[in-house]
């Protein structure tokens, strides 16, 4: 059977970044890219399930993004994914989580995957929506923020636990196939040595376009999205000042500040 793991290559800010000219994202020159941390855990969970499984399991890592995303997919292949699929063409530019989820669901259908793993959220955009939206497109049950999981491939249901406020654990049984979004700390992701990443280069990364998946132009990109980023900016910093001195001095300074705010000229 096939298990699909949706992964994302996220961006982290480098020093002294600038905002892109259209004001809707950071200039790509100032971004350091890496595999999303949550996806590292969800991939590890899937690899562990595969390793413990009695029946053969094929693990497919899927991502939506341009060619540079291959680097992250190779890491997934090095860590134990059998195959990787990357979906991209220009029409995907500007897709929101809903549009991305539509693509992921299409891949899951094409592969006849019986389970879809995703991270709870991505570290750069933090929408925490993609996995859940994919469940809607697939018509599968879903569960989010899973911190423990018991699942054997082929089983009709999976049992998982979620951490709630006040130190409570919630144990849930869910019908399969399902979409599960995995929380950090559920396992210890393995190290992908540089050598294993290099060797993973021999494994094929299949590149598909939305059209290959039977998606229309209106299904992806801004047209297929339910939301749109208007702008990204660094808010003006507020001011804070420590008032020093003994009580009398502090009171004097405070009074002066209040007058300044009121607009009273000193």
């Amino acid at each position, binding site marked *: 059977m096939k298990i699909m793991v949706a992964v994302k290559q996220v961006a982290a800010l*480098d*020093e*002294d970044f600038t905002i892109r000219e259209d004001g809707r994202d950071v200039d790509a020159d100032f971004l*350091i890219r*890496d595999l999303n941390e949550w996806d590292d855990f969800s991939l590890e969970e899937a690899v562990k399930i595969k390793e413990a499984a009695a029946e053969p399991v094929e693990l497919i890592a899927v991502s939506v993004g341009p060619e540079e995303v291959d680097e992250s997919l190779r890491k997934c292949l090095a860590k134990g994914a059998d195959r990787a699929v990357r979906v991209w063409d220009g029409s995907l530019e500007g897709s929101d989580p809903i549009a991305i989820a539509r693509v992921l669901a299409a891949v899951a259908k094409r592969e006849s995957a019986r389970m879809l793993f995703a991270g709870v959220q991505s570290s750069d955009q933090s929408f925490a929506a993609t996995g859940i939206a994919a469940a809607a497109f697939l018509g599968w049950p879903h569960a989010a923020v899973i911190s423990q999981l018991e699942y054997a491939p082929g089983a009709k249901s999976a049992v998982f636990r979620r951490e709630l406020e006040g130190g409570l654990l919630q144990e849930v049984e869910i019908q399969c196939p399902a979409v599960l979004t995995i929380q950090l700390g559920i396992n*210890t992701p*393995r*190290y992908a*040595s*540089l*050598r*294993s*990443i*290099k060797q993973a280069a021999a494994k094929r990364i299949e590149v598909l376009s939305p059209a290959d998946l039977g998606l229309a132009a209106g299904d992806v990109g801004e047209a297929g999205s339910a939301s749109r980023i208007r702008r990204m900016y660094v808010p003006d910093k507020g001011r804070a000042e420590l008032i020093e001195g003994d009580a009398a001095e502090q009171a004097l300074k405070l009074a002066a500040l209040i007058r300044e705010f009121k607009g009273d000229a000193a």
Partner: protein
Amino acid sequence: MSRTDAVTRILFEAFSAAEVRLFYVFGYAAIGIFCYGVYVQIRKYRRGAALNLPGSLWARLGDMLANVLSHRTIGRRDAAAGWAHRLIFYGFLLLFLGTATITLQYDILEPLFGIRFWYGNFYLVFSLVLDVAGVALIGGLAYMMYRRGWLKLPKLDYARPDRSPGDPDFNRPQYRREDWAFLWTLVVIGCTGYLLEAARLVWLQAQPDVWDTRWWSPVGALIAAGMRALGLSAEGGGALRLGLWWFHGLLALVFIALIPYSKVKHIFTAAGSLMVRDPQAAQRLPRVPDTEGSPGVAKITDFNWKQLLNLDACTKCGRCHEACPARAVGAPLSPRDVILSLREFANATLESGVLPAAADLDVHGKAPGQIAMETLWSCRTCMACVEICPVAVEHVPIIVEMRRKLVEDGAMDPLLTKTLQTIHKTGNSFGESKRKRGSWSKPLPFKIKDARKEPVDVLWFVGDYASFDPRNQKVTQTFAALLHEAGVDFGILYDGESNAGNDVRRVGEEGLYEVLANSNVAALKSASFKSIVTTDPHSYNTIRNEYPDFGGSFEIQHYTSFVKQLIASGKLKVTQPLKIRATFHDPCHLGRFNKGYEAPREVLKMLGCEIVEMGRNRANSFCCGAGGGRIWIPDPVGMEKPAQNRIKEAAVIPGLDVYVVSCPKDLTMFEDALKTTGNEGKFAVKELIELIREAIPLHRPLEAYA
């Protein structure tokens, strides 16, 4: 002096033909058992991986003979043991050559060609030499017994730091029994040889050719006089001689037969190990061939034949055990026990007729003979063990090759995993942006040339710690100011430089090392410079010794020798000599790895410092504990750190002012240890660069730079 050919020893005198034949049966049996044992050993080594040795065999032979004949390596840090072993070695060698000489005449030259030479004057001198050799042998053995029995040297205690009392292989009493059996067997062979010689003299006292020349065998003659004084008759001597003859002869044959099965085999394995030694074993680690499916050593057969031979060369002398900084602070590692465990494992698996299944060849684990990952990760790759080993066992590559397998399996401390990922992502271990690599230079009142953009005389390879660690940045800025002041035309690579990879390689992450080395070699090649200078001994080592394997051969100096030249040539002038008492800590990668012992000391003298050495200095310098990637792995809480152990050693120097280091990691480690050992305020830890700055005031105050 002219002697007839009657002056000799008649072999098998008064033996019947049947008795002589019986002796030959025993003799051939012994040789047969010996040869089978040698065959089994060679088959064992051949089950290891292939390895082509570089260099000429003759040069290797010469090197080995020089080491063996001089006993240079055996006498180091234990002169008495060296002299005792010399006595045993030369005594044994002469006695062996003597026996071989007799065989040459009796079994080869005389029956085939009728040539005889073992008589007359030659025989007499021969007797004298062998008598003296016997004394040397027994004397040397007696000292070794005294050493084992009475001196109770800690290095000869086989208790293991990586096992607990009660574990089956905790202190290996079988080794102790073997040591004593070895010593006693040789002593008994030697003593019965003399008794036999004396009994023969008593027996043949009526023959002037024997009796009148007896003082050419002085020990035998003395004992014969004693036997006669005790009333031993000629007939009694004859009977005693016959009994002793068989006892001595058979014991010697048993000894020969058992050579390949016991520690006696070190005669061959140690010499062989010395012959195949790699003088750069730890400085330049082996590459992983691209064709190799899984890197590193997982199975015993993944070691190459030379490493398997190394395992058998070990004589348990304990010098590595004594020198190891991890062992000294109680970490579960002794280089000796790694070697002995692997040897036991190799013997148990590779000596059998049929090679066991692959699953039974796994050397990683906690069963007897296997090596635990805690043991492998305790190693600082400081090279103290390799450096002192008298028989050229190369522990560090063995440990690193096993770590390569652990890295491949991800079996390592989570913080180390994180650091390796960080280095892969950012090119430095601090997780800082690549762009910030040259940021330390911003406060300087002058601009450091970008060597990627303009040619420079000297390219300064800065390294991670010197670039990013705030405390070390101050030292880095000072060094820049010194170079500027001395008028050196220098530049740096800015964000073109990455972590040099020395420690990444020693962790065992060879793939990441390749990425770093290739990236740095490309950056260096794209720059135009005459030579490289670095303040980081770790970078120094890998650029100097390992980058040539990646197509980058550069002339590189550590700053200590570079500054020495600047002062000697007058480009930097000492105007305020320091009247301080200093001790110098040799960084592993500058000292032991690259023999840079003298330059820093000469600089200290030029600065006017009085140098007081610590007990462990130069080749025996004690690692700060940060090597081999250990700087990225937290030390266990409650256990002494190597750096603390070292600071305590320095603290006993009366009136010490400054503990001088010349390595960024040392500065970090020892400043910490100074505080945690409560020595803060008693003396200071300083970079040599800081002392240079004090003795050579710059035109601008340092504050202007910081």
